[in-house]
């Protein structure tokens, strides 16, 4: 009897784990294909403004958001499409926002750098580097005061390490034991400048100075990200205070889509190395197959489904109407 129970539990656990890792794969693929469509829309001049692609960094957003509740908070950055999708945003309304359409998450008023969605706890992507560190910390403050058990995850790139307000709020978060996780996505480049030219000391040392629980993770390994994020989120949710996670990763494209000639700040060999050896989707696919969780055709099916989803979403957005001009002075005040 007991052995049957234990076998059933083991089977359930395996199924759950398999589902989790397949879901992580699906989410990373969705983000990658979303960004491919963004690149296409932008280069075809269908998308106004700026496009900062998240390709290459998918494991960070997915590994963290898979461990969050729907009502947990995130704040995101100018490179935010991946965070928004990983937290549950729907691609059709995202594309609509990127094209400035009424059906977009922000009714076309925010665009690529400002996608926000209360339904998925997304407090908003932010186009000021480090601009959302206070917002995430404040949401954590409210969660603690209201006792609703939510945590806040503050995504930012290593460029935000140059902003003083980050250190102000980390100090406050630690003093007040707030349920906030600061996630530093170190993609190596502050726009067009290698981070070692802008960052004295160490990244984790900065969090350590305030006594934050600090961890380093390979941001190309979705399972490692998930594991450490689960520990830090559980800890924060239990009232044990904030944490800082450095996720080392890589930005496949330029700072934005128009940043084509990059050799003055990084080599093609370096880019190629990350894409061929350190790609989070390829690495995870290899692991899934090795573990027997998937076969190549089942992964191809996931990709095909995601591609169809993104194509349909783009189609929806392209044909969606713009807001009427009389919307221009609406929503200034609540």
């Amino acid at each position, binding site marked *: 009897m007991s052995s049957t129970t234990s076998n059933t539990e083991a089977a359930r656990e395996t199924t759950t784990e398999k589902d989790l890792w397949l879901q992580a794969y699906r989410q990373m693929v969705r983000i990658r294909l979303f960004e491919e469509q963004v690149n296409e829309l932008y280069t075809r001049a269908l998308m106004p403004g700026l496009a900062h692609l998240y390709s290459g960094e998918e494991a960070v957003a997915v590994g963290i958001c898979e461990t969050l509740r729907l009502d947990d908070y995130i704040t995101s950055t100018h490179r935010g499409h991946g965070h928004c999708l990983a937290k549950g945003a729907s691609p059709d309304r995202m594309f609509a926002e990127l094209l400035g359409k009424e059906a977009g998450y922000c009714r076309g008023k925010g665009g690529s750098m400002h996608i926000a969605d209360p339904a998925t706890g997304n*407090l908003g992507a932010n186009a000021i580097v480090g601009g959302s560190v206070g917002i995430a910390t404040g949401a954590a403050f409210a969660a603690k005061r209201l006792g609703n058990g939510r945590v806040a995850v503050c995504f930012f790139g290593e460029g935000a390490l140059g902003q003083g307000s980050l250190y102000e709020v980390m100090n406050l978060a630690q003093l007040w034991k707030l349920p906030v996780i600061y996630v530093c996505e170190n993609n190596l480049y502050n726009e067009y400048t290698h981070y070692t030219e802008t960052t004295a000391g160490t990244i984790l040392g900065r969090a350590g100075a305030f006594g934050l629980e600090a961890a380093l993770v390979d941001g190309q390994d979705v399972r490692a990200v998930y594991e450490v994020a689960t520990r830090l989120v559980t800890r924060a949710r239990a009232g044990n205070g904030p944490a800082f996670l450095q996720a080392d990763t890589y930005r496949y494209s330029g700072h934005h889509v128009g940043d084509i000639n990059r050799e003055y700040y990084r080599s093609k060999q370096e880019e190629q190395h990350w894409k061929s050896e350190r790609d989070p989707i390829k690495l995870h696919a290899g692991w899934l197959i090795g573990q027997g969780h998937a076969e190549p055709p089942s992964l191809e099916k996931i990709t095909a489904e995601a591609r169809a989803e993104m194509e349909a979403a783009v189609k929806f957005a392209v044909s969606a109407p713009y807001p009427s001009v009389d919307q221009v002075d609406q929503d200034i005040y609540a």
Partner: protein
Amino acid sequence: MPERELTFAQAVREALAEEMRRDTSVCIFGEDVAEAGTPFKVLSGLVEEFGSERVIDTPISEAGFTGIGVGAAMAGLRPVVDIMFGDFLTLTMDQMVNQAAKVHYMSGGRWKVPMVVRTTLGATRRSAAQHSQSLHAWFSHVPGLKVVLPSTPYDAKGLLKTAIRDENPVVFFEDKMMYKLKGPVPADDYTIPFGVADVKREGEDITLVATSSMVQVALGAAILLEKEGISAEVVDPRTTWPLDEKTIIESVKKTSRVIVLDEGYGRYGVASELAAVIAEGAFYDLDAPVRRMGAMHVPIPFSPPLEDVTVPTEESVVEAARQLCGKRQ
């Protein structure tokens, strides 16, 4: 029964206490707001009643805790953020201008920021250039913010309660020289709507549109002018945004002469904006050019005789009014 009188500081404190009793989501944070009750003692007693969970001392990190105010407001609280001196607002500018003011619009109306920033303005406290500025024009310039300038204890209580109940970021400027000013304040719960100017004194010959600290200056000048046979009307907009253009323009149409008084810098400031509103709305009713009076365009000096000439006084207002009314002494 004689009307109850409170100081301006007591009126502010009473508004906060009443709102905190009414709504548990209201909380205060800032530097030395708890046991110290701020250097001006405006908040004395609040931590004793509401506890350190709701009246919270912060480190000296204006950008950090203002940003926390924005996030806390988005996530269900109604923070009242205390910025001790208006000069320190410069440290909060990204959070106020790029975050608080824009969250509602950028999200297509899906998020809101019901936050109040309480701060001070005003010179003549011998505090020199970094503790004496009146920077409310900067915030009036930014769509998405509301800016409140109470000039009496009565207005302070009613406007602060409105600010706390508002669904938007509100910057509430208190003249630090006015904290001891006494005036009638009802003990009951009342609010004053934003965007409704108050005619503080009626008159026929000239309108003095005055904000915050300058309302008392204008009222004093009006008494002096009356002795010279000039009847001055004093209009207090009370909020620079939203702005009650109608009441201001109607008053100017009636009197045909106007001085705009504001303790911020006159150039590119609130006084300039009010002057432009009047010029657009009442040009053909004016018998004299619109006159602006604001802080002199200098950093506020420390030395008392120097500082005293940087802000409009009753005497300088009287002189300007005489000129506009064609009277010479």
